[in-house]
């Protein structure tokens, strides 16, 4: 099981702040493909990966990173703090 979190417009498009998923995805990209295949709202949220960022266990990572041992995955747009 893995915790998946969504922030900002990713959260709004999917309609959830997060969910617990049972997945066999080996990489972040595999997990995205699983989500996109589920429902249209996921396909909309993940339509342009270049405009998304991913964090694994609260560290910025990349879409080709392995999910082995990861407990929390978060998807969000580029950050706009400061």
């Amino acid at each position, binding site marked *: 099981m893995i915790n998946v979190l969504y922030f900002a417009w990713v959260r709004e498009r999917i309609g959830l702040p997060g969910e617990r998923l049972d997945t066999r995805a080996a990489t972040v990209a595999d997990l995205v493909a699983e989500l996109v295949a589920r429902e249209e709202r996921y396909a909309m949220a993940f339509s342009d990966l270049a405009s998304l960022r991913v964090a694994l266990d609260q560290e910025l990572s990349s879409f080709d990173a392995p999910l082995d041992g990861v407990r929390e995955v978060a998807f*969000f*747009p580029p*950050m*706009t*703090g400061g």
Partner: protein
Amino acid sequence: MRLSVQANAFDPGAEATAFTKTATGAGAVVTFTGLVRDNGGTLSAMEIEHYPGMTERAIAAIMDQAALRWSLVDALVIHRFGRLAGGEPIMMVATAAPHRAIAFAAAEFLMDYLKSRAPFWKKELGPDGVEWVAAKDGDEDALSRW
């Protein structure tokens, strides 16, 4: 070093005074306060979302880097989340160092990294509705100078 990610408003003057008082051995203190731009009076509010846990970790890592690189005497970062009105302080950075150049450089470094590495997202509520603020290419480019 002190880091605060908070919903509450803060007083930049009081923070600067307190920070300066305890910066023993420093020759320079630089403070920066970021305000909510009111877009010519059209902004009704700004909402800042963040990723609790990662926000604190990411900022602490940035502060550690700055402290190590410039041998800072002290550093302070305050960043708000939640609903803010135009003109309100969003965030503040303060650095204390032996010399001015170091204090300025470290403050700029902290600001550049906060903008594109700390997980905050701004949403503007204006006359045409609600809009997420888009990241600027320049924000990412700014990191390359460090």
